[in-house]
């Protein structure tokens, strides 16, 4: 079961703010979805290796050579707030 406190905890981890109303709705929805995915516990997966990725390519590297990246102007172009050519953020809490 998912309690409203669980919702609050997970929301905090995900940096989402939920209203008390959303908390109740989400607790119900998440409980239903988790009950559905809980079906996986029916099968024995002992000794089965996890698949993170289907391709068997490993350690893909590129040549260690300089190449152009984004310019400062490009990197800042979409920033909601800029000062002194840097991303501007409010103070830490």
């Amino acid at each position: 079961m998912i309690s409203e406190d669980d919702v609050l905890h997970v929301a905090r981890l995900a940096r989402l703010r939920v209203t008390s109303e959303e908390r109740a709705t989400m607790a119900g929805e998440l409980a239903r979805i988790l009950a559905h995915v809980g079906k996986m516990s029916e099968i024995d997966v002992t000794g089965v290796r996890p698949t993170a990725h289907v391709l068997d390519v490993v350690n893909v590297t590129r040549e260690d050579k300089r190449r152009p990246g984004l310019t400062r102007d490009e990197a800042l172009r979409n920033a909601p707030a800029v000062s002194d050519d840097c991303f501007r953020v409010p103070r830490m809490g």
Partner: protein
Amino acid sequence: MTTLDPLRLTARDAKRLLVDGEISAAELTKVFLDQIAAVEDKVKAFILVTADNAAKYSTKVDREMQAMRGPLAGLPIAVKDNLVTEGVTTTCASRMLHNYQPVYTATAVRQVWDGHVVMLGKTNLDEFAMGSSTEYSAYQVTANPWDLDTVPGGSSGGSAAAVAAGEALWALGSDTGGSVRQPASLCGVVGMKPTYGAVSRYGLVAFASSLDQIGPLTRSVYDCALLLQHITGRDPRDATSVELPEPVVLPSAERLDGLRIGVPSEYLDVGLEDGVRARFDETLARIEELGGRCVEVSLPHTEYALPAFYVIAPAEASANLARFDGVRYGYRCSDPVDLTDLYERTRSEGFGPEVKRRIMIGTYALSAGYYDAYYGRAQRVRSLVCRDFDHAFSQVDLIASPTSPTVAFTAGSRTSDPLAMYMSDVCTIPANLAGLPAISIPCGLSGGLPVGFQLIGPAFSENRVLAAAHALEGAIGFDTAPPFRGSRSSSGERDRGSADTTPRPEDTHP
């Protein structure tokens, strides 16, 4: 100029008309811009129509015909709005990216731009590609051209509807759990998810990185192969991209002699509508008429694929969407008092309900104490799903199933029930988990709405899948022109908020 029917014209025929000089690229582009002007009010497939650029660029293709040649030159395309396009607003149908101006272009889009296709605009989707009906767009609800009161499927619903409605010759979409194939099925067009890694994901705004693939939506299997030819290949900017062992060949097969098609009983046990089952069975009979052989196979872990997907995809999404924090791009809440307030309010105001739901599920599944029970287990179930396919493909060449258990459903009928919405993808999700190529082709109508037929192949068997789909398509003879029936009772327009949340066209490339 020949009169062209945008509802039936294929890229193959359009190309022939261009080459023969019967039509110019500008005239061809105008056919689709005119159709957009005629039906877009009802269909709402596009978040942004780049009409001026399309007109200008097509004229340039005509003028510089010598320099701007190639198999795709002058053929108009629509692009899903989660593929970033330099100089053209890219929103992912999210308030979070309402004003995002990409400073680079997705490799797949770059490849078709380099081939001198004409981009008509950016199409609607479920926010960040999370959904199966395109109703979770923050901007508008797209209608299915076959029945305007039903959904086009999703998440590439805008691309599928644009092609079905004759608003584009073809389109690009993305498929994480069926997001190209399911809308193709519901809209009566062809849609393909290539083998994982076949198409670079560079510039595809990431949803679930181990599952996402870009794919074509077209009016024919030949067109699908033609577009696929130009977007596949190893890209140094996507470390998970690979070169196809054999290049994509344009299909010409008319027979299926000797081909063994496996029909997994588990896929027929998912609450198929009667009409879907009937069209599916008829299509199997056609396979036999064409010389193929249908045999029953078993994919015993099918019922666990959906649960595994709904752990893996949200887990990856929760990590991928962590980047949207109001600092570097996109939406930012007003007057944050401190950094945590900035993060939390930006994300709460910028993301819609389904995206939040998935972030929550993913965060929960990855959190301390639950990781092994959910994410760890889901990854092991994923291995079992892959093994099922390996075993089946030791007996058959391809696997066939319906693409979606139902035809297009009524708008609003599943939005309040996340699990009912998730069930739309029960037949398409396993191919994503296993990274396999799969195509959906229209195989007839049920109650006047299209039914999709899915063919899944082993990894890198794109040519086998396309050849079989091409032969089958010829035998089915589906008419791609939709009737635009229905009334569209409520306006599809969402509250776009203040003017600054509406994406604006930018007049650059192409």
